[in-house]
């Protein structure tokens, strides 16, 4: 099957007063039709910037998409004219942002903001758009949707605003939904509602989903594949069970170790990763994880490892020593 989206060597930089920030450094992967992909990493690893680059929402300048291709439906999105790109955004690829408080416009009603996309992309008239919006609000589980249509964002709770954002994103039946930490600002019980909603909608509508998060716990139960990012590179990629059960990269191991497990004995220590992520202005020439890695050797400081195939099919890792580390019987 042909992948829905193929990213090749995507590179995004920001030119700032302090120097060039290497936010995304040549990442390549493909996303299948109907796949839920988890993109996991800590702040500053480039997970959001890479999504914004796909959507071409990077502000230029100071930003710059320096190299790469984003092949979506046989077109390179990075080469489209601004006008053509506008018809992709919100229509074929939609995005849900982290903060539902600030991503809705406070001076327009929620209903207006959702129907706007329908009028623009689907050539609906106002009445059709309103009916469809009410259907969508129902779909994402907002009670009394018809009444709520004329509400302003401040009349919605946080969870409802995020539902409204999802309704807006789904309004044009996108082929790909990019969700950038959509539950981080929400409480756990509301987070569970939103995750359930997205999984249900994904199954009903058959779209692909990219779920960006820093929480390896959340993605475990909902995604098919995972890209683990660190300092602008994908350092491990694979199907969800392989990532969790046969972890190959020391950074992924560290991330999993720093989460408390449910059946741990009292008094168990968490395995923390020492140190801090590298400065993106001044990236080390070798492996970006070098300074924090317990398995580092001379070679790691000099040459940056590239993604290579691991044990299972579809599982790849960017580490010089993953074979040796596996033999040591850790993970």
């Amino acid at each position, binding site marked *: 099957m042909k992948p829905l989206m193929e990213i090749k060597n995507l590179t995004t930089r920001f030119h700032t007063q302090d120097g060039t920030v290497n936010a995304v450094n040549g990442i390549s992967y493909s996303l299948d039709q109907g796949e839920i992909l988890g993109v996991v990493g*800590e*702040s500053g690893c480039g997970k959001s910037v890479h999504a914004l680059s796909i959507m071409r929402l990077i502000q230029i300048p100071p930003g710059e998409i320096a190299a790469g291709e984003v092949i979506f439906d046989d077109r390179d999105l990075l080469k489209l004219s601004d006008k053509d790109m506008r018809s992709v955004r919100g229509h074929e690829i939609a995005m849900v942002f982290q903060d539902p408080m600030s991503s809705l416009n406070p001076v327009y009603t929620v209903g207006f903001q959702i129907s706007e996309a329908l009028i623009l992309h689907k050539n609906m008239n106002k009445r059709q758009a309103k009916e469809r919006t009410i259907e969508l609000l129902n779909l994402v589980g907002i*009670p009394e949707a018809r009444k709520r249509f004329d509400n302003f964002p401040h009349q919605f*709770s*946080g*969870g*409802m605003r995020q539902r409204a954002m999802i309704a807006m994103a789904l309004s044009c039946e996108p082929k790909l939904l990019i969700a950038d930490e959509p539950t981080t600002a929400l*409480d*756990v*019980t*509301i*987070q*569970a*509602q939103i995750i*359930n909603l997205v999984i249900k909608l994904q199954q009903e509508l058959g779209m692909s989903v990219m779920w960006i998060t*820093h*929480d*390896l*716990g*959340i993605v*475990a*139960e909902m995604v098919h594949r995972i890209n683990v990012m660190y300092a602008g590179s994908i350092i491990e990629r694979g199907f*969800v*069970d392989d990532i*969790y*059960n046969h972890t190959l990269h020391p950074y992924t191991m*560290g*991330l*999993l*170790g*720093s*989460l*408390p*497990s*449910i059946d*741990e004995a*009292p008094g*168990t*220590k*968490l*395995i*923390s*990763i*020492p140190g*801090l992520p590298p400065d993106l202005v001044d990236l080390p020439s070798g492996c970006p994880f070098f300074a924090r890695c317990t398995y580092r050797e001379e070679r790691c400081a000099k040459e940056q490892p590239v993604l290579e195939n691991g044990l299972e099919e579809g599982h790849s890792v960017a580490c010089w020593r993953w074979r040796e580390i596996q033999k040591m019987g850790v993970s």
Partner: protein
Amino acid sequence: MNMEKKVLLQVKNLKKYFPVSKGLFTNRQVRFVKAVDNVSFDVYDGETLGLVGETGCGKTTVARTILQLYHPTSGQIIFDGVDLTSLPESDLRKMRRRMQMIFQDPYASLNPRMTVGSIISAPLDVHTDLNRSEKQEKVQDLLKLVGLNPDFVNRYPHEFSGGQRQRIGIARALALSPDLVLCDEPISSLDVSIQAQVVNLLEELQDRLGLTYIFVAHDLSMVRHISDRMVVMYLGKVMELADRNEIYLNPRHPYTKALMSAVPIPNPRKARDRQRIILQGDIPSPLNPPQGCNFNTRCPLAQDICFKEDPEYREIEPNHFVACHFA
């Protein structure tokens, strides 16, 4: 849990209502937000008590009221045998040095114009009469204790990362060798790998210094990791209190059950196998809490009685307290 443990802090029928005034000039007090409504629990010496709940459940208000940063509407806070609520200001100040707080936001809780050294020695200036070199020595010791380079004393907060700032906040809290440390969401603004560093540090310090923690957070998996016992709050009330394992393996309140089932499990097989309880709806406004049981608008088990009577908070098993008609 050892039954003979000494009680360090007793919270008894604590209430904290915030008045809501109406009118621009008249300031008529029309309603109250019942931020904390009749909360009671004990904290044992040397334990970590986790305080969990969602936004607006009153967990931070409880912590602040314990420190008397808010004056309670009614109720008692008995710290080491002394009721703090009736203490005059001068005596309260003496007690305060035994209770310290670590704040949520390591960016907002450190004064950007003060050096790390002066931030950490500020409590020493107020509460002790150490001379300058003694203070300096103490600050260096504290920096070492929290895993920072003692040469950093003359640097400013902006030169540090979030995790390092949180360590500075911890050093400040420990400057007066307190007995009780209130940690108000100390890790929620940090990255995952840094969270583990800070949690490990807090645990280490507890072992070394015999600290008692009240750990306020909404990240349930981390709270369960660090706590000995847990208090679950909802809309200003305690829903359940029990030993960490008991509350996880044998939750009795329907809210606790839903909350525990919503904790993300970093293991795909286990995550797929478990039954998730998805609560409907949102948390009601604390301005206008429902009649009867607070949880009745979202409770899957709610019966008529839940809409009429507020359930009694009672001990259903030794050391396991629940407020539910059907537990």
